[in-house]
C-alpha cells in the first residue's frame, strides 16, 4: 500500500529538512492504519487532505523560523559565532587582503609591545624594593654651588645622619676599583664602599650569609665583604660554600660574609661586584676632611614623613653646618632630595619617550593604512552586504560581521606580535649603546597579555569604525545591482584624510631622522681639541702595596718611558683625566660678574701627554719636565678657562687650593666625556702632585696602535707583574662609542621613517587606484563628452596629491611645534632647519606623485566605450 505519490511529494517539499523523514513516516503510519480500517480510497483521501492542509502551516513556519533565527542572531552569542565564521569565510576568500592586514598590524603591534615592555620595565615599573618611592638621593646644594659638585664629605654625612630625624636609614657610598688578586689574572674589581645602613635603605636582606654589622665598621676589625648575586654566579658558580672564603682586594684579605639577592638591577646603579664597609683609609686625609665631597648619599624616608618634610629637615641641618663651618661649607646651605627612581631613569627617559613617540607614529600610520584598505574592501563588498541585507540581515548583523572580520585580523596580528616582540626587545637591548639602568625581561611574559589584548582590541575598534559608516549607508537598489559605484563626498574626504595623516606623520619621522643623521655626522666631525687617530689609551695602576705617592709616580714614569722607546710609538704620556673617561676632579670658581660658580676640572699630566693626545698649545709654553716633577707654583690653563679668566692669562696668577699659581701656557680645550659637550675649563697643575691617584696612559703610534698592545703589556708586566691593563681601547673607537646613543637614535629613526614612507606611499597608491576603479564610469562619461585624457589623469592624480600636500603642511607644522623637544637630542643642527623641512616636503611630494602615477595613467587611458558598457 503506497501513499499517493503527488501528495507525498508535496508534503516532502513543504516539510523542513530536519523533520522531513519523521513527518513522512508519521503520515505513512497512519495512512496504513486507515487503509486497513477504511480502505484504500479513504486512506488516499485522508493523505491528500493531510498534505494540502500541511503546506500552509509548514511554509509559514519555515519563513517565520528564518526571521526568528536572524532576530535571535542579533542578540545571542551563537549569532556572534556565526558572524565570526562569516567573517573568517571572507578572509579565507581574500587571502591577499587578509595577509597584508595581518602582516602590517603584526609589525606595528610587535614594535609597540616591544616598546611598551621596555618602557614598562625601565621607567614605569616600581623599583624592586619595598616602598621604593621612599628611597631618595640626597645632594648638597646651594644657590652658588655649580651643578655637578654634589657629593658630600664624610663629616657632613655623619652630621646629616645624626641631626636629621626623617629617615629610617641614611647611607653613603663611593665606587672604587680594587685590585683583585689570587683569582686568575690580577684585575680591577668594581667595588662599592658602603656605610652600615646601606642595605637598610633598599630593605635588602642577604640571599646567603649576613649583611654588615656595626662591628664590621670599627677600624682594625676583621675585613669583610658582601658579593653581588651576579658576581656569585660568575665567580663562584653559586656555590653555597662561598661564605668564609677570602677575596684579596688591594693585597688585603676580605672574608666573604654574605651574598646579595638578585633584584634585577644594580644597587643603586653601578656595575659593581663587591660591597665592603666604608672605613676611612689610613693616610688618605681627605676621606675624613670636611672640605672634600666624595660620598654619594641615599636614604629611606620614614613612612609618615613626606619627601618635602625630609627635604626641609635636611636643608635645615645643611644650613646649620654652613654656619658652623664657614671655611668648608660656605654656600652649601641646602640639601636636595630626589626619588632614586628619577635619578636612575632620568638619563634614559627622554630616549625612551622619543622611542615611544616614533613607534606610536608608525603604529598610527600602519592603522591608517589598514583602515583605508579595509574601508576600500568594504566598499567593494556593497553588493554582498546589500544582498545579505535584502534576505533579512539587519545592519547590526552586518556590522557584527565586519567587526568579527576585523577582530579576527587584529587578534591574528596580536598573536603573531606576541610571539615576535621579545625578539625586538632583545635586539633593542643588544643594540642600545649604553647599559640600561634596569634589566628588561627578554622572554615572553604573561604580564604582557593584558597590554597585547588591549592593543589588539583598541586597534580593531579603530579599524571597524570607518567600515561601519559605510554599512550605514548601504542603499538597497543601487548597491544590490552594483550600479551605485560613485563614492560619496564624505567617503572620499575620509580616505583623503587618512592619506594626509600618514603623510604628516611620515614627514615628522623623516624630518627628525634627517636631523638625527646630520647630528651624527656633525659629531663625527666635531673638533674635539685632540687628534684621536692612531692613539691607544688604557688604565693601569701600580701595585697597591706601593702606597707612597713617589713610588706610584715612579711607576707611571717608567711605564711611559718604556713605551716611548717602543718602535712605532711617536709619543706617550699619562694623566689623571684622559678624554672619554672622566673629568678628573673638579672645583668651582666664580668668574667676574657672575653669581654662580663655574666648574673647573683639575688635570695632572706627565710630560709627553699633550703630544701623545695631539692637543695644541695656544699661548706661552708647556710645563717643563722639571716643573712637572717638582713645580709648586706653575700651572697651565685651557682655552675655556682662559676665557673665564678674561682673555690673555699667561703670566697672571691663579688661586687654587690655597696656593697662587703662575699661568705659563694656554692649551686648546678638550671635549672630555661627550663629543657634544663644549670643552670645559681645565687647570693643569704639575704632575707630581697627583701622588697615588690612578692614571691612564696615552700612546700615539704610527699605524694601528692596537698592534702594539702585546709589546706594551710585556713592558708593563716587566715593571710590575701584578699591574693589569684595563679599559684598553683606541681613542677613535672610544670617540665613536661616545656618539653611540646619537647613532642609535639616528638608525632607529631612519628605520622607522623608512617603514613610515613605504606605508604612506602604499596609502597614496591605494587611494588613487581605488578612486580610479570607482570612478571608471564617471571618467568614461567625461571622456565621451570630450574631456582630454591628460585632464582625466590630472583629476586622478589630485586624489593623492591633495591629501599629500595637506599632510606635508600638517607634518611641517608638527615638526616645527615639536622642534624644541627634538632639539634636545640634536647637535649642530636645528630641528626646524629650512633645508631639512623643504627637502622632506619635496621628497614626500615626489613619492606621492610616483605612488599615484600608475593609477593616473590608467585613468587617462580609459576606453570610454568599455567603461560605459561594463558593470
Amino acid at each position: 500500500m503506497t501513499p499517493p505519490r503527488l501528495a507525498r511529494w508535496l508534503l516532502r517539499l513543504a516539510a523542513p529538512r530536519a523533520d522531513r523523514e519523521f513527518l513522512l513516516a508519521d503520515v505513512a503510519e497512519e495512512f496504513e492504519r486507515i487503509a486497513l480500517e477504511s480502505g484504500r480510497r479513504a486512506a488516499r483521501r485522508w493523505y491528500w487532505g493531510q498534505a494540502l492542509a500541511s503546506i500552509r502551516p509548514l511554509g509559514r513556519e519555515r519563513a517565520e523560523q528564518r526571521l526568528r533565527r536572524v532576530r535571535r542572531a542579533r542578540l545571542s552569542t551563537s549569532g556572534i559565532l556565526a558572524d565570526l565564521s562569516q567573517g573568517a569565510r571572507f578572509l579565507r576568500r581574500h587571502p591577499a587582503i587578509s595577509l597584508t592586514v595581518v602582516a602590517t598590524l603584526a609589525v606595528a603591534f610587535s614594535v609597540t609591545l616591544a616598546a611598551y615592555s621596555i618602557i614598562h620595565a625601565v621607567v614605569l615599573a616600581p623599583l624592586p624594593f619595598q616602598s621604593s618611592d621612599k628611597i631618595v638621593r640626597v645632594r648638597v646644594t646651594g644657590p652658588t654651588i655649580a651643578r655637578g659638585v654634589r657629593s658630600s664629605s664624610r663629616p657632613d654625612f655623619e652630621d646629616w645622619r645624626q641631626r636629621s630625624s626623617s629617615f629610617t636609614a641614611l647611607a653613603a657610598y663611593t665606587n672604587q676599583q680594587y685590585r683583585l688578586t689570587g683569582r686568575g689574572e690580577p684585575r680591577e674589581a668594581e667595588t662599592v664602599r658602603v656605610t652600615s645602613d646601606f642595605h637598610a635603605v633598599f630593605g635588602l636582606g642577604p640571599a646567603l650569609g649576613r649583611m654588615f654589622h656595626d662591628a664590621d665598621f670599627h677600624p682594625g676589625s676583621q675585613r669583610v665583604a658582601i658579593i653581588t648575586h651576579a658576581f656569585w654566579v660568575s665567580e663562584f658558580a653559586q656555590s653555597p660554600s662561598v661564605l668564609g672564603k677570602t677575596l684579596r682586594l688591594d693585597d688585603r684579605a676580605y672574608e666573604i660574609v654574605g651574598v646579595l639577592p638578585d633584584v634585577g638591577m644594580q644597587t643603586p646603579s653601578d656595575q659593581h661586584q663587591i660591597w665592603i664597609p666604608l672605613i676611612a683609609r689610613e693616610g688618605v686625609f681627605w676621606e675624613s676632611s670636611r672640605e672634600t665631597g666624595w660620598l654619594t648619599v641615599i636614604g629611606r624616608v620614614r613612612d609618615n614623613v613626606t619627601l618635602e618634610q625630609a627635604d626641609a629637615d635636611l636643608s635645615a641641618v645643611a644650613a646649620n653646618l654652613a654656619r658652623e663651618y664657614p671655611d668648608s661649607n660656605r654656600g652649601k646651605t641646602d640639601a636636595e632630595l630626589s626619588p632614586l627612581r628619577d635619578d636612575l631613569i632620568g638619563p634614559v627617559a627622554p630616549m625612551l619617550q622619543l622611542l615611544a613617540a616614533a613607534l606610536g607614529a608608525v603604529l598610527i600610520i600602519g592603522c591608517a593604512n589598514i583602515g583605508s584598505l579595509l574601508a576600500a574592501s568594504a566598499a567593494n563588498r556593497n553588493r554582498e552586504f546589500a544582498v545579505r541585507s535584502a534576505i533579512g540581515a539587519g545592519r547590526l548583523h552586518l556590522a557584527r560581521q565586519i567587526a568579527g572580520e576585523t577582530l579576527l585580523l587584529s587578534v591574528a596580528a596580536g598573536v603573531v606580535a606576541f610571539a615576535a616582540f621579545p625578539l625586538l626587545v632583545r635586539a633593542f637591548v643588544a643594540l642600545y649603546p649604553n647599559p640600561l639602568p634596569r634589566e628588561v625581561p627578554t622572554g615572553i611574559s604573561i604580564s604582557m597579555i593584558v597590554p597585547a589584548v588591549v592593543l589588539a582590541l583598541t586597534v580593531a575598534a579603530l579599524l571597524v569604525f570607518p567600515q561601519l559608516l559605510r554599512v550605514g549607508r548601504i542603499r538597497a537598489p543601487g548597491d544590490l545591482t552594483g550600479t551605485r559605484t560613485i563614492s560619496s563626498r564624505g567617503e572620499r574626504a575620509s580616505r583623503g584624510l587618512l592619506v594626509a595623516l600618514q603623510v604628516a606623520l611620515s614627514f615628522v619621522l623623516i624630518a627628525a631622522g634627517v636631523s638625527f643623521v646630520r647630528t651624527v655626522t656633525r659629531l663625527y666631525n666635531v673638533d674635539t681639541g685632540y687628534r684621536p687617530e692612531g692613539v691607544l689609551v688604557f688604565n693601569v695602576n701600580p701595585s697597591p702595596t706601593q702606597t707612597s705617592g713617589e713610588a706610584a709616580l715612579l711607576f707611571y714614569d717608567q711605564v711611559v718611558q718604556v713605551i716611548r722607546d717602543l718602535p712605532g710609538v711617536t709619543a706617550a704620556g699619562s694623566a689623571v683625566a684622559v678624554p672619554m673617561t672622566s673629568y678628573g676632579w673638579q672645583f668651582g670658581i666664580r668668574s667676574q660678574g657672575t653669581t654662580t660658580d663655574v666648574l673647573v676640572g683639575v688635570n695632572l699630566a706627565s710630560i709627553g701627554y699633550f703630544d701623545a693626545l695631539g692637543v695644541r698649545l695656544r699661548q706661552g709654553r708647556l710645563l717643563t719636565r722639571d716643573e712637572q716633577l717638582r713645580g709648586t707654583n706653575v700651572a697651565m690653563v685651557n682655552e675655556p678657562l682662559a676665557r673665564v679668566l678674561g682673555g690673555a692669562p699667561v703670566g697672571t696668577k691663579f688661586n687654587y687650593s690655597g696656593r697662587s699659581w703662575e699661568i705659563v701656557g694656554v692649551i686648546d680645550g678638550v671635549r672630555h666625556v661627550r663629543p657634544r659637550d663644549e670643552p670645559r675649563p681645565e687647570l693643569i697643575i704639575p704632575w707630581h702632585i697627583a701622588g697615588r691617584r690612578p692614571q691612564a696612559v696615552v700612546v700615539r703610534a704610527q699605524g694601528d696602535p692596537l698592534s702594539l698592545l702585546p709589546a706594551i703589556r710585556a713592558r708593563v708586566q716587566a715593571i710590575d707583574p701584578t699591574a693589569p691593563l684595563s679599559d684598553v681601547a683606541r681613542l677613535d673607537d672610544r670617540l665613536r662609542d661616545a656618539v653611540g646613543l646619537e647613532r642609535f637614535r639616528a638608525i632607529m629613526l631612519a628605520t622607522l621613517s623608512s617603514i613610515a614612507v613605504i606605508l604612506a606611499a602604499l596609502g597614496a597608491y591605494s587611494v588613487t587606484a581605488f578612486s580610479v576603479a570607482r570612478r571608471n564610469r564617471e571618467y568614461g562619461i567625461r571622456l565621451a563628452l570630450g574631456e582630454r585624457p591628460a585632464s582625466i589623469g590630472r583629476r586622478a592624480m589630485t586624489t593623492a596629491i591633495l591629501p599629500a600636500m595637506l599632510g606635508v603642511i600638517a607634518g611641517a607644522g608638527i615638526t616645527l611645534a615639536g622642534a624644541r623637544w627634538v632639539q634636545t637630542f640634536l647637535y649642530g643642527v636645528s630641528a626646524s632647519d629650512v633645508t631639512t623641512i623643504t627637502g622632506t616636503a619635496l621628497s614626500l611630494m615626489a613619492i606621492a606623485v610616483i605612488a599615484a602615477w600608475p593609477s593616473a595613467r590608467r585613468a587617462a587611458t580609459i576606453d570610454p566605450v568599455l567603461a560605459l558598457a561594463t558593470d
Partner: protein
Amino acid sequence: MPKGQYLAEFELYVMSALSLLGDEAYGVTIRQEIEKRAGRRVAIGAVYATLSRLADKGYVAFRISDPRPVQGGRSRKHARLTPAGQRALRASTAMLIKMIPALSGSVTEGGKR
C-alpha cells in the same frame, strides 16, 4: 512566563497533548490526541510546524527514538515539554481559567442585548 510570550491556541493544544501523552508523544499520537479531544481535523504539518516553533521558544525538546525492533521498524521523533514549557502551560491555563468566567459573562450580556 516572560511578558509577550503568550501561547497561541493551537500551541496550547499541542502542549496539552504533550502533557497528556508523556513519553508516548510523537507526530502521530499528538495529531490524534488533538483530533480526538478537540473534535476537529488536524494536519500533521500544523503539528510539526507548531512543535518547531515551541522548540525555538524553548518549551519543547525532542528525542529521536531507536528504530523499533520489528520489520521495517523506524525511529520516531518524540517530543516532550521542557520545564519552561510546563511552566508556560500552567501559566496559560491558569490565565484562561481566570479569564473564562468574564469571557462567558460578556457573551451572555451580548446575547441579552
